[in-house]
């Protein structure tokens, strides 16, 4: 009788342990399925004050000669909180799942179509009037934040090779040549092309100060007051949340 009771208790304990283990393994499986890796790229326009605020919050400079430019996930949380402030304009933000071996494109939904070839079209019966022009060929240019990302080797250390081609293009103005119809766009463009290694939950921060011709106003952010712009590019390797 005693042995039978021991046997029953043992069985119950084993069944209980098995159930706990099964549940834990399923939860682990779900967690793995949810934690799909992804690359997040951000392009932020700010100024020296904004950059200073970030560095003050982090407690170190983003210049790795005196600080560091590779950030942990906790530090990115802090930066993300700061980015909601008025000093920062997020020009571009894209999250790209990396479960792919193909190049992934980031495209904004804005395009500018402009004429690149013209022909004369004088109005009928108006010999004295000005010559009019008719566009015969157009070109299209992507505006806003766009780029391409591709993923390379995953090293044993856990670091992922990433190729990043990012850019921002906006219409700077128009230049007219002889006739008001004969005008061509002037584009301002910032772009970077690099390949880097990132560990999961790491962020690489890169700082640029744009060409001075851009400085008359917010470079890519409209309606901002004139300032010495600073671009902050953040490339993060993390997981889908």
């Amino acid at each position: 009788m005693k042995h039978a009771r021991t046997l029953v208790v043992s069985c119950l304990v084993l069944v209980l342990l098995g159930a706990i283990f099964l549940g834990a393994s399923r939860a682990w499986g779900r967690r793995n399925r949810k934690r799909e890796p992804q690359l997040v790229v951000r392009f932020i326009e700010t100024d020296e004050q904004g950059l200073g605020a970030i560095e003050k919050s982090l407690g170190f400079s983003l210049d790795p000669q005196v600080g560091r430019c590779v950030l942990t996930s906790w530090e990115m949380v802090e930066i993300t909180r700061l980015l909601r402030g008025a000093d920062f304009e997020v020009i571009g933000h894209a999250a790209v799942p990396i479960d792919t071996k193909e190049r992934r494109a980031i495209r904004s939904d804005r395009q500018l179509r402009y004429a690149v070839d013209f022909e004369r079209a004088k109005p009928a019966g108006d010999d004295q009037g000005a010559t009019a022009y008719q566009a015969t060929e157009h070109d299209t240019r992507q505006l806003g934040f766009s780029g391409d990302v591709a993923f390379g080797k995953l090293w044993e250390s856990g670091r992922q090779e990433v190729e990043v081609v990012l850019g921002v293009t906006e219409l700077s103005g128009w230049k007219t040549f002889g006739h008001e119809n004969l005008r061509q766009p002037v584009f301002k463009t910032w772009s970077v092309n690099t390949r880097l290694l990132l560990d999961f939950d790491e962020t690489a921060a890169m700082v640029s100060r744009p060409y001075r011709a851009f400085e008359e106003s917010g470079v890519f952010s409209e309606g901002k007051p004139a300032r010495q712009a600073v671009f902050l590019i953040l490339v993060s390797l993390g997981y889908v949340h």
Partner: protein
Amino acid sequence: MKRAESIFIALGLLLLTSFGGVLISSLIVAGTSAQDDSETEEFGEGGFPDEFGGGFEGESGRFGDGFGTFTLGPSEPQQVWCEAIYTQIDTAELDDIRIGGEPFVTPVSERTLLTPVEKLELLHELKLRSSFEIIGAASVVSIDGQCQLVQMVEEIRYPYTHDGALVSNGASGRPHYLADDFECRDTGIRLNWTTNCEPGHDVIGMLVLFEASRLAGWLDMGSGIADQPLMLSWNEMTDLYIRDGMTLVMTGIPLTGFGRSLALDTDQIPESMGSKTAVILISARILALSDAGHKAEEGIEE
């Protein structure tokens, strides 16, 4: 009793089997979450997409198809942070700058290699001068041996060829030729560099291509030809070595007469182009494998 023992052993085996199965499946899941090395060594097609102006395609004034070679060795490559700062200042004001109590520029020499602290001191001193301006600056993190490119440009389009016949522009306008084709030129800053680090050494070899150009104005060509851009450009290609964490300074590149030597109407040359000196700072640092985590731990300990 024997029966109870056999049931107990059977249940134990069942549990072990299920544990082993789950363990193996977990390992499989972990394995599939990593990418297959053999299939991911090659990146996709390189180069800039069209919206960046075709970038590497060697159009007017553009660089070639990059000069970095990409070969994956048996060990993980090093990662390098590089920074280039292109500035400009009145030559007279540059003479007054001192670093660590010593003149930055003397009649016979100038400082070319700076420690991080000296670099900050130089930038601080430069910013105090009214004529100082940062024309463009960029920092990039990249795998050693890779070509990196940063460009900050305005793309100017202008008529390149014209129709043969003069076109009336009405009573108020001037007659002009109809533009046949348009050309595109970039004005601004383009930085292109490749690093070469020897494992175990703290010297970074760098091949730097630098291009700066600006639109000085539009030239009135007369005779019905559309205005043509007057571009001032400066290209530099240099092969240099920097000790890890140090900054190389290149100065004394006078822009005086930069535009006037073109023997064009001097009224069209901006006055600001006179008596300027370019100061270029190039910095590089090898990033440790676990730079973020390691430094974060240090911070916690502190």
